[in-house]
Each structure stands twice: as C-alpha cells, then as structure tokens.
C-alpha cells in the first residue's frame, strides 16, 4: 500500500555528465531535493543551470549522450536513475507526466487533438470509444476549454497557443499521474495567457492533489504555484527552501541577486521629472499600416497592424509602447526606423519629415536613429567580430583610434572582447554589443524593440540600468517597445498601451500605472502582478482567436 508519507519524488546527490565531441562535460553536480504528495516544488535557474537536465533525469528521458554518474532518483521509493526507457515506459503517463515548454511544437500536426489525448487513454487500457470521448470532454472542461467538442475535432494548427497548452495539460493529466513535471510551461505564451494558465494549473493541483515539479527561470511565476523552491546555478543547487523564506531572507549571494532583481523590477524608482516644455524630437501622426495575409487556401484577409496611431517623443526621455504579441507595436518601431513603409501618416524627426523607407532618407537623418532588437543571436552577424560589428556602424564604416574600445567600455564590456565572435559571448554581453552598435553614431533617438525580453532576469536589470545611465549621460531619447509592465515601469517616462493596432491609453507612467483608465490596461497590470483581473477589468479569454 502506498504510504502517504513517502515522498513522491526524492532526488539524492544526483550528478549527470554529457559527452560532447568526445569530451565529458558535467551538467549537474550533487543535486538533491524532495517532493511530497500534492506539493509544488520549483527548480529555478538561468539558462544552462542544469534544471532541464534534472527534469529529464527524473523523467527517465535523458538523451543518449548523457549519463547519471552518481546519486539516486527515487520515484515512490523506487530508484529510476539508471532505468532504461523500456523500463520507464509503463510509468510515463501513469505515474508521472510532462507539460512542455512550447505548445506549438508539442502536438502532432497530423492528428486531431482529441485523438492525441485519447491515445494516452488507450495506452492505459481504455477501449470503449464512448468512455474515451466522455473522458476527453471532461478533461477539456477541467482545463477550461470552451466548446470542447469542437476543439477535440480540430488539428493543432487551428488553435491558439493558450488553447494548445491547455490541451497539453489535459493530455498530461489524462490518467491522473502522481507527479507532473512542468518545463517552463508559460514561457512561450502571452502575458495575459500566462496568468490564466497558471491559475488553471493551481486549480488542478488543488483538485487532484498532483505533485508539481515546476522548471522555470522566472521567480515571479513560482510564488503562486509552489511552496518550496530550489535555486540552481552552474549545475549545482545553491539554495533551497520555503518560497517565502527565500524571498525575504535569502542566504546565498546568487539568491540574493535574483530576489533583488525581482524586487527591483517590481519597484518604482522614485520621482519622475515632469516633461520639459521643448519641441518634440520624434513626431508620429496618423500612422497606418495594413497587411494582407493569406496563402493558397485561406481567403486573403487584411490585418490592420497599425490603425491611426499618433505620439511624440521628447528629447532625452523614454516613451514605452506596451502591448501583447499581435498588437502592432513592433510594426510601429519598424515604420519609425524606415524598415517598413507605412500606408499613411507622417513621421518627423526634429521638424524634418522622414521618408517612408530608410533608403530614401538622407544620411544625416539616418544617423540620428538607431535600433536595438530583441534577439542578439539574430541581430549580430555571426561571422563578424565584435570590432567589425561596431565599426560598421560608425561613420565611414571604420573605427578611428580607440572608438571601438571606448564604446565597449561605455556599455561595461571589457575591451578585450572586441576580437570575439558573437557565439563566444553570453546573452547579456551580446545585447550590450548591440547597444554599443546602436550608440556608435551618437544617435538622438534609439528604438528598443523588446531589447531585454530574451535575457535572464538579473541580466535584464543590469541592462536596464545601463540604458538609463546612457540616457542620462548622452541625453538620448528612447522609444521602448515591450510587453513587460515591470520593465516599462523601471525605464519609461511615458507609456502608450497598444491593442489591435490602436492606442488604448497614453500618458505619463505614474498616472497610467496608478489610475489605469482603459480595461485592457487594467488587465495587463493585473497579469503583471500575477493575479487574474477582477470583473471591472476585462479578462482576456484565450478561446477567442485573434484573427
């Protein structure tokens, strides 16, 4: 009989190595923790910390080139650390299951989603088709999918990200496993969808009493679901314990950094200077852009990406445009930079009208604008050294004297990194190089398109501080595009909230955050706090297809 006091999962002194190009690389070192029935435990760490490896080891699904070199993994008292996949097969789905990170990649594109959930039921012995259909319906209702019958008949590509993730959760719980491993389940989703999904998971944990092993890099997400947290870094567990304790009394320096970063992000830095009465640097009036989509099969439909948007940016200050994916905010950035020609409206820099495309703009005006993109992996040429990347952005495409070194120093990078290639740098370093490149020609306005979204939390904080100091030193104005309300609060003076191509609300950050006028703004703020919005704010149901 199962002793309810036996922990569901107990990891003791686990060490895992990978073999990469004939060399043994340690990935996990002496990690241990316990997970009891109905409990939530979060494994927290940055990229490369080893948390995914631990999760895979617990699932018995380590890749072929990984070996457990020490320790035990006790699932309900049974050591599975060295179990073969064949030995694990009866356990998958029945004793433990997984909710994946990317719902778009996790479903079979050639099979209806109802059938995919039914496959799990069939594998565990259920044969009666009516019972199967009923169970699938019940599962879909449990994960709050609207119109479960229609959804079950659909193929994955007909459904939104939020819906797909709910289906993945339903599939994972189909035969009620005791342990559910959640591998960053909300990273690939929109902010409002994230909040809804986390809420659903919490509800399920309470109802079914399933234990949760929650893998994440974001501390803020953890606190709603998990009582206990383990912090991993460089393959080791640096600290673990009660979530509350860790948040308020962190012991290890790394934990302290994480906690500081979170509270820093959540905190408002203090008085904002009122806008000086000067002529605006950037003026955008009546901007419009419509895309017509459609391929061979779908009827051509027009999507109004930007629908009559107007705003100004004051010299030396930051305007943030905040919204979710599909709101049109990135399109605005591209139009301002001249990478995309708008269908209508006027863009002017300091009184000079800007041509629709960058090719049409004169060199002097072009130099006054710069952009930093979200993903440093695709915004830096992988075949150019750092020196070359920055030099090409300088006037004349050549560096005079120590210009490159000075720019690197300005972004807090060691000048010796100038000879490195992007793949030899960390994410934060690459983004700093991108910032150095943007500032190379001494622009008056820098557009930052989700420039911190791909970075680990602590690195985000550092980069934001850097941006603020650069602005203070050089008087550069920023147009900051983001989906993250915390970041906006830290960096911006003014904010515009964008939805479906239009501004819902625009005003000083203090004002908009303290007294949001539009329901969508309220919903965004509420999601950022990790709560679901109340009735007064609009709950964005993710069963609505954003077409």
């Amino acid at each position: 009989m199962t002793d309810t006091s036996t922990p569901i999962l107990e990891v003791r002194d686990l060490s895992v190595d990978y073999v990469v190009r004939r060399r043994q690389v340690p990935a996990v070192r002496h990690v241990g923790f316990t997970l009891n029935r109905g409990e939530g435990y979060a494994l927290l760490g940055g990229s490369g910390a080893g948390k995914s490896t631990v999760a895979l080891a617990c699932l018995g699904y380590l890749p072929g080139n990984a070996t457990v070199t020490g320790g035990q993994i006790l699932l309900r008292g049974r050591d599975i650390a060295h179990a073969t996949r064949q030995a694990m097969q009866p356990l998958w789905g029945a004793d433990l299951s997984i909710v994946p990170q990317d719902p778009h990649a996790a479903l079979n594109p050639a099979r209806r989603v109802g059938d995919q959930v039914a496959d799990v039921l069939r594998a565990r012995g259920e044969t009666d088709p009516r019972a199967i259909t009923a169970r699938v319906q019940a599962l879909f209702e449990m994960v709050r999918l609207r119109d479960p019958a229609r959804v079950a008949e659909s193929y994955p590509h007909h459904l939104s990200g939020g819906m797909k993730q709910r289906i993945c959760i339903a599939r994972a719980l189909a035969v009620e496993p005791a342990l559910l491993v959640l591998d960053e389940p909300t990273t690939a989703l929109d902010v409002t969808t994230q909040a809804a999904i986390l809420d659903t998971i919490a509800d399920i944990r309470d109802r079914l009493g399933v234990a949760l092993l929650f893998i994440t890099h974001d501390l803020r997400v953890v606190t709603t679901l998990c009582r206990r947290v383990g912090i991993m870094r460089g393959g080791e567990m640096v600290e673990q314990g009660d979530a509350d304790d860790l948040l308020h009394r962190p012991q290890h320096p790394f934990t302290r950094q994480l906690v500081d970063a979170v509270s820093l992000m959540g905190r408002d830095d203090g008085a904002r200077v009122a806008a000086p009465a000067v002529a605006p640097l950037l003026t955008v009036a009546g901007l419009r852009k419509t895309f017509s989509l459609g391929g061979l099969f779908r009827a051509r439909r027009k999507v109004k990406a930007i629908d009559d948007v107007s705003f100004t940016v004051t010299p030396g200050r930051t305007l943030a445009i905040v919204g979710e994916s599909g709101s049109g905010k990135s399109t605005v950035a591209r139009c301002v930079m001249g990478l995309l020609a708008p269908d209508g409206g006027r863009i002017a820099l300091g009184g000079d009208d800007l041509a629709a495309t960058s090719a049409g703009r004169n060199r002097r005006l072009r130099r006054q604008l710069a952009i930093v993109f979200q993903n440093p992996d695709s915004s830096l040429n992988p075949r150019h050294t750092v020196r070359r990347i920055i030099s090409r952005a300088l006037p004349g495409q050549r560096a005079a004297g120590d210009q490159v070194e000075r720019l690197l120093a300005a972004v807090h990078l060691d000048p010796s990194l100038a000879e490195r290639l992007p793949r030899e740098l960390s994410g934060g370093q690459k983004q700093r190089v991108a910032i150095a490149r943007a500032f190379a020609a001494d622009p008056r306005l820098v557009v930052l398109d989700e420039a911190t979204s791909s970075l680990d939390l602590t690195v985000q904080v550092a980069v934001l501080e850097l941006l603020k100091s650069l602005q203070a030193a050089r008087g550069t104005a920023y147009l900051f595009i983001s989906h993250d309300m915390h970041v906006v609060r830290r960096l911006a003076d003014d904010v515009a909230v964008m939805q479906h191509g239009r501004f819902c609300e625009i005003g000083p950050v203090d004002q908009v955050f303290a007294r949001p006028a539009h329901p969508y703004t309220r919903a965004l703020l509420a999601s950022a706090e990790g709560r679901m919005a109340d009735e007064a704010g609009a709950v964005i149901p993710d069963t609505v297809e954003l077409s």
Partner: protein
Amino acid sequence: MGGASVTDVSARPPARVPILLRIAQARGGTAGLILIGFWLTVFLLSLAWTPHDPFAFSLTQKLVAPSADFWLGTDRYGRDVLSRIMAGCREVMLISAGGTALALALGLIVGVTAGFYGRLYDEGMMRLMDILMAFPSLLLALLVVGVLGPGYFNVILVVGAVFAPRIARVARGAVLEVRQKEFVEAALARGDSAGNVMLVEILPNIVGPLGVEVGVRFAYAIFLSASLGFLGLGVQPPSPDWGLMVNEGRELVDVAPWISLAPACAIATLVVGVNLLSEACRRIWAGEA
C-alpha cells in the same frame, strides 16, 4: 568587466578547431579525406609523370592483362590503362572543377540578387530556374551539347549551364534565411548599400549550405562529364576521358574486363570521396558532428 553584474559570466570561447580536424572527426570524414587526398596526389603526379605515354599505341602489347609492366593492363590499342587513368584524372578534375566554378559564379549572381531583392524579380528568376530544372540534367546537357557539339570546353560550358539553376536555388534559399535576420535590417537601416550588404553581411553567412551544395555539384559534374564521354558526346578520342574509356572497353568486357573496370572504379572512388566530404561538411554545418 566594469560594472557588469556577477551573473553575466562570459562564456569561455570554445577553441577554434582547425577545419580539417573537424572533418576528420565527423563520420565518414576521414575516409573522404583519404580518397580525395589520394586522387589529388595522382592529379599532381600526373602533371609531371606517368608510367607510360597515355597516347602511345603499341601493336605488340594489345589487350595485356594487368602485369608488372602494365599494372592495369593495356587496351585494344596497346595503351597503358594506368597511365590513361592518371591522365584522365587531370581531365576529370579540370573539367568538373571548371564547370562547377562556372555554375557557382552564374548561380550566385542570380540566386543572391533574387533572394535579396525579392518580389517580382525573385518570382521571375525562380520560375525560370524551375523551368530549367524541370529538365533532367542529362537531357538538358544533351540538348546543349547537341547545339554546341562535343569537346573539352563545351563540356565545361554544359556543366556550368546545367547546374547553375540548382546553385541559384540553394543560394536564394540561404539568402532568404539570412535576409530576414535583424543584423541585415540594422545594416539597411544604417543606409549600407545593397551591394555592401549582400557581399559583407549576407555572403559570409551562406558559405555553409552553399559549400555543401558545391561539393554535391562537383560530384554531379564528374557524373555528367563522364556520362557524356561514355555517350560519345563529351571529350573526344583519343583523350583519356574515364567515361570514354568505359565505353571503349564495353564490348571487350568478356576478354579484357580491366579496360572498363579500371575507369569505373576510378570514378566510383573519386565520387565517393567527394560525397563523403560533402556529407561531413554538411554535418558540421548543421551542428550534428
């Protein structure tokens, strides 16, 4: 590192392993290097010396089986097969390399500009390439050879013309992938000229898939020129073209199989070597090795 936070640890730069070593480490890479190395050596050697004169007829030494004097025997005109193989190696290398180089030049011009400029120009060019590729290579080669006539330089032209569309397609595909990356957008936003962007930003990033395709094309070029030679439409006698040699020995397969076997094996080993090398490079580029 100045005021950077402690967590922003710089990745230790992975040692930049020399490319030959990486190829040798990939599966099949060593075998490929050995085979190619072997034929390169033969090529270089043949420039200076062959055991006998590849063109010298001999009335007394016809159809001699492989022996101490003639390691691969002689053909119906008494010519030393080994020497002809070595001399033929020169032909194969030069024709195939020349044809592939021509195809690369033409294909790059069309493919890179099509991928970069896009829209109508791209559509039109690719339709044209598709039509050309709708012709099986040998068919197209036959048509062109039918027009130009057989011969050494014509084969190079044929190979170049037949393979340019495929290289164009691959180049265009690779350029499209790179074109949408933000560092290209950053360069365009700065006002870099189209030519500058294509040459400096884009080209270095398509070397991988393009290199693999060039390797594959080189193997096909050997195929094509040898097949044309076999059919009598390529390099003409008395040239020691390997395809031609196989044809010449075809009727004598009963009595003197070595005349056809030797060049057939030569082609096989050379092409296997090229294919293994291309495959190894493809693996390295895709990060599988």
